[in-house]
């Protein structure tokens, strides 16, 4: 079954699986190279209609286009949900092909940036795409020091609490973009 076959899959298979899983939850997944990633990020933010964006520390400077605003200014904007369309760009530690999930383990400040955004853009290195949740658990258990707080993000903030009708963006991002960076 699923995670058994995935365990022996190639990196390309895993990325394909990750992408189709993300598509099934209305997220967008693309693959890019380290050279092109900055331009792709800029294009994605523009396509998503982002009016201001922030970059979470932790990824190579060269991966980011110009134009990020400081964290304090971003958090000020986030107080009012109608103030604009906020984007947050972050590097995920892992991606899980089985479920189409991105694992992030940022600090409280970083999580605020991510969860108060309208558009979340998560980058992940191709080498960090693992087959299934079991491999993810093993990788997390091996982290030193162990992350005090981590999440699997699989899509946007969604609810079906009113008449079982799907609606997005109830608290956090209403759109999730994922970019697999092949180095």
């Amino acid at each position, binding site marked *: 079954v699923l995670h058994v076959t995935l365990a022996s899959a190639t990196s390309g298979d895993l990325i394909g699986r990750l992408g189709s899983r993300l598509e099934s939850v209305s997220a967008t997944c693309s693959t890019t190279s380290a050279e092109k990633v900055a331009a792709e990020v800029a294009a994605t933010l523009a396509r998503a209609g982002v009016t201001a964006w922030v970059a979470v520390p932790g990824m190579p400077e060269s991966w980011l286009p110009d134009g990020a605003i400081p964290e304090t200014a971003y958090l000020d904007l986030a107080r009012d*949900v109608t103030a604009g369309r906020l984007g947050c760009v972050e590097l995920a530690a892992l991606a899980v092909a089985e479920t189409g999930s991105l694992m992030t383990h940022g600090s409280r400040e970083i999580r605020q940036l991510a*969860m108060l955004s309208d558009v979340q853009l998560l980058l992940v290195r191709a080498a960090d795409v693992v087959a299934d949740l079991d491999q993810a*658990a093993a990788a997390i258990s091996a982290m030193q020091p162990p992350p005090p707080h981590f999440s699997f993000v699989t899509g946007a903030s*969604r609810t079906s*609490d*009113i008449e079982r009708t799907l609606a997005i963006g*109830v608290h*956090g991002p209403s759109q999730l973009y994922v970019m697999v960076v092949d180095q």
Partner: protein
Amino acid sequence: MSADIGLEEALADATLQATLQNFQHRWRASRDTAMAEVDFDRLKVRLKAAKRAVLDDMDASIAGFAASARATGAIVHEAATAEEAVRYMLDLTRNRGLKMAIKSKSMVSEEIGLSPALEEAGVEVVETDLGEWIIQLSGQRPSHMVLPAIHKNKAQVLGLLRRADPDLPEDATIEDMVLAARGYMRSRFLAADVGITGANAAIVEDGRLMIVTNEGNGRLTTTQPGLQVTFVGVEKLIPTIADAMTQLRLLARSATAQHMTSYVTFFRGDDPGRELHIVLVDNGRRSLRARPEKEEALQCIRCGACANVCPAFQVVGGHVFGHIYTGAIGLVVSPELNGLQSVAEAQSLCLSCNACATVCPVDIPLPAQILEVRRDVVAANGLKWNKAAGFRILRHPILFRLCARTLGLAAPVVRAVEPMLRRLPGLRAQTSWRRLPLPAARPLPGRWRRLQRAMDRHREPSSPIGYFAGCITETIHPETGTANARLLYRLGYEPTLLRQHCCGLPASNSGDWETARVIARQTIQAIEASVVAEIVSGANSCVAAVAADYQALFRADPEWQRRATLASARLVDMTTFLARPANLDKLRVVAAGAAPLEVTYHDSCQSLTALGLKSEGRRILEAVGCELVEMPTCEECCGFGGSFAFEHPQVAERLAERKLAAAKDTSTAVLVTDNSGCVMHLDAAARMGGSLRAVHLVDLVAQRLGANL
């Protein structure tokens, strides 16, 4: 809580009924698709093993988790009772001067009554899960563990949200409402001085907690306020992170038919800038652990799947079917967590159809556990007078037959006044939707003797076999008994009628185990007294009862348990019997040339889930030249449930109606099933109008072979 929906109100609410029915059907289809991606049985075994390890030494697991959590800097408090858990929060509130709490969805906080206590102490409590917020605004209890506001329609939700946000227009769409909630919640998230959460799992190995939310409110609540209090029932412990992954695979699929929930958050005490308090709530869980026949319920992961397939839940909703925890698991755990009386009424709504057990991701034997609760309720509150009187009669075969005979002779009179009975307000619920099932003037034993004399005249060499009729066939549908006999003769057997009047199922299903044991002993003795080795029966619920229920009835009596096992081994249902290759071959030969007939098939609950029959009945139909037109809902309960149809006639009526409507959609004229109870129930309802008839498989097969034997 007067705001909650009562039974009568639920039955009268067509919108609610349609909502729940649509939801269950949609859930079932997408859950099955999602579950097909994984090896459900293997994952169940893995998760059960993990939960078992915790339950095997609950105290050590709790101590282990507390130690790991404290090592990360979390402040761990063990609360023995709901009051203790609430007091901890109230003390913290007072000491820290807390003003505003944001909450992510937590069933245990509902169980202990946390929010009302905090509000009384002057704290503004904001439920951040949209469904929970709607419920909070309405002053009701959640009606479903995963979908708390499933009983509210869009207009009702809008009315409630406009109380919080008067700017919402009267014609607001669902999208507008969600955006309004986003704005309202954003300001609360930023202003709150404490976050309160529950947990889907508490991981022993590293003192970590797991929260699963689609909205992301769990991630926000564990991020934004610097102070956090997590309430977790001690049954949520799980040994390792790897085990939590197994739980995730089953939880998302079982709860919302997703392969993964949008946000799964893991956290512990060493998150810089935040202070974490963990309140480990017992509140009756150790008492539940001490009851061997119920303790498996502590493996529950609160996915709500048991409610999503429950036929009675589909009709009445979670305010009626459960207490704080709804659905089958709610009936099982509430006595220990919130007192036996909390589900004294609700437990009577279980039909023992077993649907919940088939989807439970940790294989909890819910139907059997609900019968334990029912027994406890009867022990505490007594039986209703009419049941008590009925069971007194049922204990004595002679008295029972005398009553059935008398009623049978009076049946023409009852039939004559039946239209009048339908108009009597007190009897309308029982009579408006069905022809009352009444005993026949001539019950089976007399008919059997006559038939046997006729058969003996053209006797051919044949093999002896026993026949177990069951009370419905003996008294109400004796023609099924004679059809059975003719069929057996035709297949080369010589049937002997077992001297038996009832298997005891009506009593055990009603919580009167004392009576059930008396009758079960009579049945076992009747089987033991039979000189023929194999005994067949068309009463599949009875066959299942002898096999499974008797083991529970005689739990404290190994000798009778052993005798029950031996008796059960000799009893076989007619469906299994006819589906044996040799019998199928004979059927094919004898039925060759019968005119084609289109029929639809209802899988009776006991046949499907207790006896494991699925293809057998269909193969028999095919052998006798029937063409099957399937109903999509062929596996849903028809609403009979033994005495259920008389105790809750309006619920039974709705379920019969739905089954008959599905059968009519197939455009066939015959609804076939292999359980005498379902036949009695469905045919009684079908005869109120239209040409559709419910027929026992055995009757149909006998008809197909020609009445002339």
